[in-house]
């Protein structure tokens, strides 16, 4: 395991600036998630670190060494792709053991066996070690693919949306497992996704990426509670943050230059029927919580509410701000 440092990394494909001036330090043993939409430059970053692409400029250090001239195999990274690719003619056991069998690794048969069984337990595939890899469900194949990366103990794991092809339930289970395994092994992991829940729940630190630029890096709590700009504020939170004109609702204390007020559920106080300035449009019953769809003036808001709150569509409510977020005309956060 090792630190990975990216300095002023840039990459262009034809007319597209895929990555511009990316600076990021990943500490030894840290789980960093790059979050952004398709085309933001996340996968390019992983491919540059792995050596599958060459940067136009900038520097990549793994464990303190500049890897610019190193071939992918020399960089000591393990890559897990979105689409699992297993050796179809091999069993699960053979697939997991394969990366350890390269002659340069000089591992004894006992050591290989120990590592394969340990990792198989971690990714919960130990009951199917003798199965052909083609006889597995999609979720099982992806667990084998993750396991095959884990057996190697490289300097860094690079993972490109490894859970996106799984169904929701399995994804939720593996989220928890992957985080545990990473902590258990003390691995350094850079993980790329467009799913904010994966980023929030697994990352030690999240990097928000948009249009080839890293907009903010911080812990999930920092990014959620203290976003640097409108773009970052809109990336995290379900329901989405409500973006409103500064003078729409009372209770705020907007600093000079405020153009937009950002109000999440925790920034809104609702009182039914008293000095109403808004109306309930409809209520989405999600079980554990309700999404209230609210109309205030010409604006629509969505906020979470306790499902047992006695409120119905058409009810008039008073909506007040409580320490919301303020943004200027350029979308930068004001405090």
């Amino acid at each position, binding site marked *: 395991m090792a630190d990975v440092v990216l300095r002023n990394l840039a990459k262009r494909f034809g007319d597209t600036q895929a990555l511009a001036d990316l600076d990021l330090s990943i500490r030894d043993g840290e789980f960093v998630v790059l979050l952004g939409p398709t085309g933001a430059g996340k996968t390019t970053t992983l491919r540059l670190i792995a050596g599958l692409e060459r940067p136009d400029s900038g520097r990549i250090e793994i464990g303190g060494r500049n890897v610019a001239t190193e071939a992918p195999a020399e960089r000591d990274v393990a890559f897990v792709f979105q689409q699992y690719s297993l050796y179809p003619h091999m069993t699960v056991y053979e697939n997991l053991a394969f990366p350890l069998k390269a002659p340069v690794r000089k591992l004894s048969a006992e050591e290989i066996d120990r590592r394969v069984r340990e990792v198989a337990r971690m990714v919960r595939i130990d009951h199917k070690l003798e199965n052909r890899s083609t006889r597995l469900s999609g979720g099982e194949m992806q667990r084998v693919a993750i396991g095959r990366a884990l057996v190697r103990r490289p300097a860094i794991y690079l993972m490109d949306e490894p859970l996106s092809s799984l169904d*929701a339930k399995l994804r939720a289970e593996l989220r928890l497992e992957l985080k*545990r395994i990473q902590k258990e092994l003390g691995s350094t992991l850079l993980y790329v996704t467009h799913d904010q829940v994966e980023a929030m729940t697994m990352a030690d630190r999240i990097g928000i990426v948009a249009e080839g630029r890293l907009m903010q890096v911080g812990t999930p709590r920092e990014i959620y509670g203290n976003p640097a700009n409108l773009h970052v504020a809109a990336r995290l939170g379900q329901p989405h943050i409500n973006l409103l004109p500064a003078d729409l609702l009372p209770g705020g204390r907007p600093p000079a230059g405020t153009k937009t007020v950002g109000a999440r559920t925790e920034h809104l106080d609702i009182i039914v029927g008293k000095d109403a300035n808004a109306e309930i449009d409809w209520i989405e019953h*999600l079980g*554990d919580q309700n999404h209230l769809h609210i109309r205030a003036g010409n604006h629509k808001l969505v906020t979470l509410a306790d499902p047992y709150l006695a409120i119905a569509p058409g009810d008039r409510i008073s909506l007040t701000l409580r320490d919301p977020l303020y943004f200027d005309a350029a979308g930068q956060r004001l405090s």
Partner: protein
Amino acid sequence: MADIRIENLRKEFGSFVAVQDSSFTVHDGEFLALLGPSGCGKTTTLRMIAGLELPSSGKIYLDGEDVTFNRASARDIAFVFQLFALYPHMNVRKNIGFPLLSQGMAKAEIRARVEETARLLQIDHILDRSVSGLAGGDRQRVALGRAIVRRPKCFLMDEPLGTLDAEFREVMVHELRELHNRIHATTVYVTHDQHEAMAMADKIAVMNHGVIEQFGTPQEIYAKPATMYVADFIGSPPMNFMRFNSGLKSGDRSILLDGIDVAVPEIHQDMAESELALGVRPEHIRFSDASALRGAVYGSEYLGTNQVVAVETPGGLIRARVPANRSFRIGERVGLEFNPAKLALFDCRSGRAVPSSLYQETRHG
């Protein structure tokens, strides 16, 4: 607009029973979601309502009329598959107007209808654009426009948002429901995604192996699950189950779980000694040092407004949804306390809920 009534509907493919004696009514203007995993019979049910499959037995009434054996084209319904199928060589206006043109409607009326439909979907500003240059959301709105422009008696939709990525699906879920709120068309919507069903539907039919396990409002299905299957399928994370062996007597207000007394809603049925499961929703768990029911934190997932903490207990992994203002260490010992009024009990062998005051409590909201 119209109501849809299904009576004892059954469909067999050879020896395989795809749909087993289903009966339900979708009232005029209601939005029903048929929810279940693939192979549960939801799409077959929808295709029978549409007239694309004939039932083995049973009846289908549309607006009071028996249409069981009517052709699909004679049923006055609109079937929306994946919303993306558009005619690439036509502009938005022609795409939306196409179903009316093929009905032979007068040009002026087509124009008026298309414009009204476009206003409803808030795409009236792009009517003369080519569909090939449109963004995903607008393409979906155009496809939807083509379905609603005919003003059919009802809409049938088969996983229309299935191929979209999560973020965009969320946007379309809201748009579809807002559209429904404006036009109040009777709708049957097939999905395997419990979140879509909960977010959009007035009523949900949860299906499993061709059988409707529960039919009710989203709130009923979530708060008063009829079976363990429903309780597990709905909710994210799903309901926690803690298994134990015991008998029950009508009037009981507590159970013994691993030697610990746990208060539950009043039991309304005697039961002989058998394997039972206590069902607890994640948001009905609180951490309390005073509780005798203890476990070790296995992991926590921060979600902004709240967090989900997984706790390893003697009865298995339990997930609790708690406020986000406290951090938990892996391995930390915690006590668990349940909200007694919200607990469900199940008979593990049949999977059915044990009757209790939970199921008779007056409905909220």
